[in-house]
Every structure is written in C-alpha cells, then in structure tokens.
C-alpha cells in the first residue's frame, strides 16, 4: 500500500479545520457548534500525525494521544454544560441565549 502523500493529508486537515471554524461561527445549534470544535481538534491531530509520519519521529504520535485524552475530558464538561443550558432554557439554540445585554 502506498503511503498517502504529506500535502494531501495536510490539505484534508486544513479543510477540516476551516469547516470546523466556519461551523463554530455560523451554526446556531449548541450541539453542532460543539461538534465543530471537536472537528477542529481532530484536524490538529491529523496534522500532528501527518508530520510525525513525514519526520519519522514519535513526538507527533504521542501528542495525538494526549490531545485525544484532553478532548475527551473537555467533551464531558462541555456536554454537562449543554445539559445545564437545556434544563434552564428548554432549548439548545444559541439565538435564544441572550440574557446578558450590554
């Protein structure tokens, strides 16, 4: 099996990252925004792995594992917060989160 060339993997990661970034900015459903943030983290992970393969060293592989662990911890707290929002509002639509005004 031929290895995937580095530029291809990097381009895929960059596209995923940009999709996530745009998603955080334009989507209005809290859960979708949350998934977009996870997409950004995974794009960063993919970049780490692509470069680790290109450089032929293990730092990038190790980093990806740490990032996965951190993202899992973050996801658990994030979902708990989404549940708290849903309980107090009955909705996870960000348009309606406007208690605080300038």
């Amino acid at each position: 099996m031929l290895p995937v060339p580095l530029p291809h993997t990097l381009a895929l990661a960059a596209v995923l990252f940009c999709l996530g970034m745009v998603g955080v900015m334009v989507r209005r459903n809290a859960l979708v925004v949350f998934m977009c943030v996870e997409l950004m983290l995974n794009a960063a992970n993919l970049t780490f792995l692509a470069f680790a393969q290109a450089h032929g060293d293990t730092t990038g592989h190790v980093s990806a594992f740490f990032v996965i662990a951190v993202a899992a911890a973050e996801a658990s707290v994030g979902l708990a917060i989404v549940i708290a929002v849903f309980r107090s509002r009955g909705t996870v639509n960000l348009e309606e989160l406007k208690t605080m005004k300038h």
Partner: protein
Amino acid sequence: MTLPDLTAADLQPVLPALVLAAGASVLLLSEVFLTTASRSHLALIALGSSVLAGGVALATAFEPAHAVFQGLAVQDPFSSFVTVVVCLGLAGVVLLSADFLKQRQAERGEYYALMLFAAAGMSLLAMSAELITLFINLEVLSVSTYALTAFLRRGPRPAEAAFKYFILGAFSAALFLYGSALLYGVTGTTRLADMVGPLRTAMHTQPWLATCALALVAAGFAFKVAAVPFHMWAPDVYEGAPTPVTALMSAGVKAAAFAGLVRVFLFLGRADPEVVALALSALAVLTMVGGNLLALPQRNVKRMLAYSSIAHAGYLLLGVAALFPHPGTGVLAATPLMLGSPAVNSADAYKGILFYLLAYTVSSVGAFGVLSVLERHADGDGATAWDLDRFSGLAQRRPGWAVAMAAFMLSLAGIPPTVGFMGKLLVFRAAVDSGLLGLAIIGVLASAAGAYYYLRIVVYMFMRPAPAEGVLPEKYWATELALVASAVAVVALGVLPGRVADWLSQSGMFFGTR
C-alpha cells in the same frame, strides 16, 4: 524517546502543583467519606493548600533557572513568582467563596477542588516549555474554570455564561493546537528551546506556513488573555459566573495565561523579533484603548470590572511587547524625544510584568470581594444586583468596605499611593526604555480615561445618599479578612514596594536568556 526514571528530586520543582492537587484530592475524598452537616472545614483545607503551595513556590523562587523533566518544563524565578501570585489570588478567592457559598447553600467540596486543580494547572502552565505540555496545562485550568462558571447552575445566567466560555475557550484551544501542529511540522520538535533555530530557517524557506503557525498560536493566547479584538466572550462570562469565580478568572487565569504567552513568545519571537513585537504592540494598543472605552458607559459594576480586566490585559501586553527590541522605525515608536538607540533591559520588563500581575491580583480580588458582599442581598441574579446604585452611600452604612473599595478603585485606576500606580509605573518605564514611548503615552492617556469609571464608584459611595429601604449586608470573618488583607496589601505595596520589587528583579533569571 526513552522514558525517564523519576526520582523524588525530579518532582521537587513541581511541588507547589503537587500540593494543590493533593489538597484537591483530599477535598474530593472528604466529600465522599465525611457526612457532617458543617462544611466550613472545606474552605480551611483549600486555604491551607494554597498558602502551603505559595510558600513552597516562594522558597524555591531564588534558585537559578534550570530545565526539568528532560526539558519539557523549566523552573526559573519567573515561573515561581507566577505561582506565588496565583496562590495569593487563590487564597483570597477561597476566603471570599466561604461565605458566598454558605449564603447560597452551595458549599461543596468539588467547588474548592476545582479551584485547586485550576491553580495547579496555572502553576504548571507557567513552567511549561513544550507545546503539548503547555496545551495540557492550559486545558487543565480551562476545563476546571468552565465547570466552576456553571457551578451555581440553577439560574439561566451561569449556564449561559459557562456555555459561551466553553465554546470560545475550546475554540481558542483548537487554534493554539493547530498552530502547535504546524510549528511541529516546520521545526520537527515541540520543545520551545529546540524550536528557535529551525523556525528561523523556516521563516525563509516556508514563510507562509511558519507565519500562519505563529499567528494561530498568538490568536489562541489572545483569546485566553481577552485581548481586543478577541475579547467578546469576557464581559458575558465575567457577568454570568459566580462572583468569586470571576475573581479567580481575572486574577489567576489571567496571570497564568500571561506567563504562558511570555514563555512561548520569548522563544518563538526570536525567529522574527520585529514582526512579533509589532503584533504584540498592535494588540496592546487595541486592548488598552478598547477596554477602557468599552468600560466607560457601563452602569453594571461587574460588567465594568470585566472591561477593566480587558484594559489591564492591554497594559500587561505593553509590558510583554517591551521584552522585544524596537528599532524605532515604527510610526508609534518614532518620536523626537528618543535619544540614542533604545536598549532592552529585559530584567526591568519581567519585573514590570510580575509586579503588575501582583498588583492586579490583589486589587481585583478585593474589588470583586466587595461586589460579592453587596450582591448577597440581591433577589436572584438579575442585572440590578451589580448596578452602580448599590454603591450609593456605602460610606455611611459600611465605612470600612467603602474605604477598602476606594483603595481598590484607586489602585485599578493607577493613582498613587496604591500598588496599581507602582505596577503601571514599572510597566510604562520598561516600555519607554525599550523604545515604545508612543505606546506608553497611549497607555497613560487610556488609563486617564479609565480613571473616570473607577472614580465614579468612589463618588457614588461617598457623595450619594444611601437608599432608604436597603438592607445592610452582613459581615462574615472570612470575607472581612480577605478584604482587609487585600486593602492593606494594596496600600502597603504602593507605599513601600522596595522589598517585593527587589525580589521580582530576580526574575531576570529567565530560562533561555543568556
């Protein structure tokens, strides 16, 4: 990569963080095994851990800088002093929390445990010298703070604030991480010290990728320190979080994020000092001016303090920008008053940053403390709980609090004889010395504009009649202790800053500056 054999001596540099984490574990376990109704011991355990950790950090603060954990982290006076400042802020916040939580029947072990875990993350963040270590510690402190923001989850505000904080925090963490991945790609390492040389080469061979990576890392930090234009989350989050947690955000989180920023850009900035210095200066100007202007029309004092915290991040960014040489070619730096070529005395700049962090920590913990005692008799968590009118006539009803609040406001405004004035003096002097006269003038003008909204609170407290029907807030020893201690610190450090400033001069021994 070989795994190191850890000995007790290797763990010594991270002892403050270990003490904090151990205290947090005791608090979590006590919640499981102790079934007593009284919960006042929780605050005492948290207070003891933070004082002990701060003491340990202070004891090691005068050791020469050295790398620990195979270069993944460094211990130098800078990191130790940041830990001391964080522990000081944490101790004040714990004292404020004790009564705040009791009033709301929300005294729980996990609240203090989360605070201690966050502080452990802050202490380790100040020491991290490798991008993944830095990322993990950034997340340790952020995830704890997200949970703390939502701690009083019954009202709609805390949940909403926590959600905004979480999304923007995670977003900034992802920006930082993607930047780190690109930096790893162009340099082949994640250690900051090994990165300088390859990055300098990469600035010529792959300028787009390298610049993109630096910009992403900088944007990630700019979100964390709430620099304009990355500040939009801060006012809502500061307003919605429980007031003691807001105090921790403005004191501890800010100090640690700045420590990380200084550490990263001192190494990475060497690849292209001019661009980094220019970017930092631009952020500093926007943040100083923007923060102060946005704070001016606020009648909600908690929101006003949030914008004020943004403005203070601007002054600190000015101090960080002073770490880099400015050749005097920029529009802002070119002034006829500059004689000769400016020389960077980085020891002065470190001293300025650290003293400013100390000054801001004691002043903001005190200010949020007064806010939290006044908020107590508010019904619910409506925005009126922090309205300016709540301060009317405070001098007649609670003269002690009014005098303390006046001291904190003068300190935040930078008026002598308070610690805030000394902090501004040191930062602005370092900036002028490194050729940033134009920026320092903008900073002084911005802080003069800021004096308006700080002094307005003093005017309300001393010159407005007290509302007739208002119920007097009660006193509680822990809160009183925190307020008295921070008020004394604000004045004492403002009048006699000599000893502490001498200590902080040691922070010139920064790892990697030779």
